[in-house]
């Protein structure tokens, strides 16, 4: 409310007072009806309350003749009782009392609530209810009321008047009444306009607010008729003639969806519900997702209706879908991780070696069955087993912690002494630990594999044992070898000695042979000289003796030659000259050589040589020597009968058999081996009387062996003997 400032009021009042100072008695009610009508008219004409108050104060001074008058109005906007207009007051007196309306103890505020005028002492600005100093001025306060003395109508102001005349002056009472009514009317008109203005403003504000909200807001009545909608809602649900067909159709569709949603909501659901609504963007044509919040409301004047707020959740929906998709992916990934982990678990549990995964604090996160056997207390555990497990744990933890303190790198390995909790046997293990580092380079765990060393240690032990045995064996072999070397040396020396002895023997025999031949040469020589009559003629007896001397010398020579042959064969110095020869020719040669002896012997001597006799490769001189020896023996030991020389081919084993058989004195079986020995002539009575050396057959057998053949004999005493030389067809020397 606009009021004129007090100074303006006062100056006008004082000027008026100076202009016309009428002198009338205010205690007399003598105001004319015309004056009242004039005032009433003026008041009706006035719009401003302050103007009305000024007119009334002026009228009081001029027509009633009061000394002083002041009109105060209850300004609800300031919550104060403020002065509006006055009459007859000095500028000093005009001090705004402006008490607060709530201050019920203030005399003026209290007076405003009274129906009847209240008398005060003092001046307007400092009133009190009891008489103070003598001659102190008095005034009265009259409550200004819109509805007269109606108790229900509050006072709109207070009129202070001096002197006190209200009881006697009806005009004053009339004025107070009319001023109260005017002020009350003016107040009321003014506040209605104000309320309308405020309402309009607030309504505009509300519209703006509603329109600025991006969410479509719709207010419908219970029949679904649209009451209020904001711009966002109009975009979706409002259509105009000039718009395209497509857009109109989209809007129609949206309206259908909305009413369906609202009606369904109204039918089925309790108040205030959120639901999803699919609408079409009339401009873009794309799908829009809205969350529909509808609330039923009731108004005293308007009845019930529905407020629907649509919240565009297209982004939310998309985000939700993305979230769901991500969640689904997450689930898939999780499943993959789980299956990966299962596979890893399977791998780890299928490994026979204990595997443990620990966190950086050393707590075991994961382990396979073999590790559990070492690091968990078995079900039927003894206190010892539990203690063993704790000891294992401690050893293992101290090893893993070494990875931080000792090892710079990511890996660490070393031996740990563990004990099998069930068996109580020691399990020496080689542990290989590796840090598990995340992609961010942060240590997230430690994986450890324990490699059981028992077997390796056992192998090493066995290997060592084996090596010891092997070394012992080697030592024995060395000793044996040394012994062999020693023995070999002994043998070598013995062999050398034997060789030397053999050489000495050969040398000795050669020397003996030489030394024997030399005198024998003289013996034989002189004997021949005598026999040939070089020294003169001899008688028959002398000749006979010399012949015997010659024969014995010949015998001695033959003995010496045979000794030499044996010596040569024994010394390996008998040369063998292999040539291709015909045995039949050889036999013929031998037979012609011994022919004088055969003729002399007067025996039946025959030769039998088969026609298929193949050639042989051998030493013809040695064969001749053998055959001569055999033939000489046969002729010598066969007093009468026959001698047969035969030769035949024996296919198996590819040999030539040369046999000299006779019908002579024979050899006892006991002597049949003895005759081949050196000087082994059969010492039986039958052989006595025969000259012989006893080396012939020994040489024959040696020569046979030298040619790769064999000499055998079959004989029966007094029936004859049969000596056979078996010769290989392809001869070989020795």
């Amino acid at each position: 409310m606009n009021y004129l400032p007090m100074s303006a009021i006062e100056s006008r009042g004082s000027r008026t007072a100076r202009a016309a100072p009428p002198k009338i008695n205010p205690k007399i009610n003598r105001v004319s009806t015309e004056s009242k009508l004039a005032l009433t008219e003026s008041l009706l004409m006035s719009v401003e309350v302050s103007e009305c108050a000024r007119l009334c104060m002026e009228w009081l001074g001029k027509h009633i003749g009061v000394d002083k008058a002041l009109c105060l109005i209850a300004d609800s906007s300031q919550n104060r009782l403020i002065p509006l207009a006055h009459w007859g007051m000095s500028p000093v007196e005009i001090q705004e009392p402006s008490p607060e309306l709530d201050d019920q103890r203030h005399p003026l505020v209290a007076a405003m609530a009274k129906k009847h005028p209240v008398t005060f002492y003092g001046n307007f600005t400092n009133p009190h209810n009891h008489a103070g100093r003598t001659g102190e001025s008095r005034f009265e306060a009259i409550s200004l009321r819109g509805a007269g003395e109606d108790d229900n109508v509050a006072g709109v102001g207070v009129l202070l008047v001096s002197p006190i005349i209200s009881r006697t002056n009806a005009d004053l009472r009339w004025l107070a009444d009319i001023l109260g009514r005017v002020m009350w009317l003016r107040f009321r008109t003014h506040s209605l306009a104000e309320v309308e203005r405020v309402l309009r403003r607030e309504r505009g504000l509300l519209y703006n607010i509603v329109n600025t909200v991006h969410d479509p807001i719709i207010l419908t009545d219970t029949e679904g008729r649209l009451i209020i909608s904001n711009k966002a809602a109009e975009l979706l649900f409002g259509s105009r003639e000039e718009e395209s067909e497509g857009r109109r159709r989209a809007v129609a569709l949206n309206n259908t969806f909305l009413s369906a949603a609202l009606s369904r909501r109204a039918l089925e659901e309790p108040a205030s519900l959120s639901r999803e609504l699919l609408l079409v963007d009339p401009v873009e044509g794309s799908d829009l997702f809205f969350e529909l919040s509808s609330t039923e409301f009731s108004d005293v004047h308007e009845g019930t209706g529905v407020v629907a707020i649509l919240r565009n959740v297209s982004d939310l929906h998309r985000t939700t879908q993305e979230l769901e998709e991500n969640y689904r992916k997450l689930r898939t990934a999780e499943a993959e991780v789980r299956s990966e982990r299962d596979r890893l678990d399977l791998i780890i549990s299928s490994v026979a070696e204990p595997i443990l995964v620990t966190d950086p604090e050393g707590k075991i996160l994961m382990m396979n069955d073999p590790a559990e056997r070492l690091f968990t207390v078995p079900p039927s555990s003894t206190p010892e087993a539990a203690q063993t497990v704790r000891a294992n744990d401690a050893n293992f933890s101290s090893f893993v912690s070494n990875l931080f303190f000792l090892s710079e790198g990511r890996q660490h390995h070393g031996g740990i002494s563990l004990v099998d909790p069930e068996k109580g046997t020691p399990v020496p293990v080689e542990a290989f630990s590796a840090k598990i580092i995340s992609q961010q380079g942060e240590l997230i765990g430690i994986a450890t594999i324990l490699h059981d060393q028992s077997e390796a240690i056992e192998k090493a032990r066995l290997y060592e044992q084996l090596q010891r045995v092997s070394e012992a064996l080697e030592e024995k072999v060395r000793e044996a070898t040394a012994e062999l070397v020693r023995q070999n040396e002994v043998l070598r020396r013995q062999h050398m000695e034997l060789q030397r002895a053999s050489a000495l023997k050969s040398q000795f025999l050669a020397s003996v042979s030489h030394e024997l031949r030399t005198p024998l040469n003289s013996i034989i020589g002189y004997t021949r000289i005598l026999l040939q009559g070089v020294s003169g003629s001899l008688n028959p007896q002398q000749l006979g003796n010399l012949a015997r001397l010659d024969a014995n010398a010949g015998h001695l020579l033959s003995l010496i030659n045979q000794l030499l042959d044996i010596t040569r064969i024994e010394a390996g110095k008998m040369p063998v000259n292999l040539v291709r020869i015909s045995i039949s020719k050889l036999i013929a040669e031998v037979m012609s050589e011994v022919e004088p002896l055969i003729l002399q012997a007067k025996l039946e001597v025959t030769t039998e040589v088969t026609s298929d006799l193949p050639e042989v490769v051998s030493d013809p001189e040695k064969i001749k020597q053998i055959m001569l020896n055999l033939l000489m023996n046969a002729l010598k030991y066969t007093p009468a009968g026959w001698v047969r020389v035969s030769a035949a081919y024996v296919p198996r084993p590819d040999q030539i058999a040369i046999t000299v058989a006779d019908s002579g004195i024979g050899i006892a079986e006991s002597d049949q081996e003895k005759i081949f020995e050196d000087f082994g002539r059969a010492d039986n009575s039958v052989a006595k009387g025969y000259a012989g050396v006893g080396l012939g057959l020994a040489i024959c057998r040696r020569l046979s062996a030298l040619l790769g053949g064999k000499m055998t004999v079959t004989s029966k005493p007094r029936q004859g003997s049969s000596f056979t030389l078996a010769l290989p067809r392809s001869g070989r020397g020795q």
Partner: protein
Amino acid sequence: MKEPKTKLILVVDDVADNRDMYAQFLSYKGFQVALAGDGQEGFDKALQLLPDLIVMDLSLPVMDGWEAIRQLKRNQSTKPIPVIALTAHAQEDVAGGAREAGCDGFLTKPCPPDELVKKIIAMLELKQEEVQPRAARQLGVQ
């Protein structure tokens, strides 16, 4: 001067009995005989006498038979003289060694004197055939 048909045989042997025995028989058979008891003496006598044939024992003192034969065969005047090695050594290698030394014949003791004479005659006949042309040539020159 010796008879043209009487051949001079030098017998070298360290055993006196053998020398005597062969000398008796060779003389009986009409040969002239010269004797030596060791290799050196044999070689010296051969150079001095230039015999028709030399019978050389091998095991000899002073100079052995092998060396004597080698020296005889090295000397131009004695080289053509046939040498018969006569030894009591029966080993084959002895005969080989003697042939290597340059002997023309080889006999093993005991060797009866009649067999030695057979060998000497055989060798001298062979020699006769060989030397005949040379003798004729010498006559022709004269």
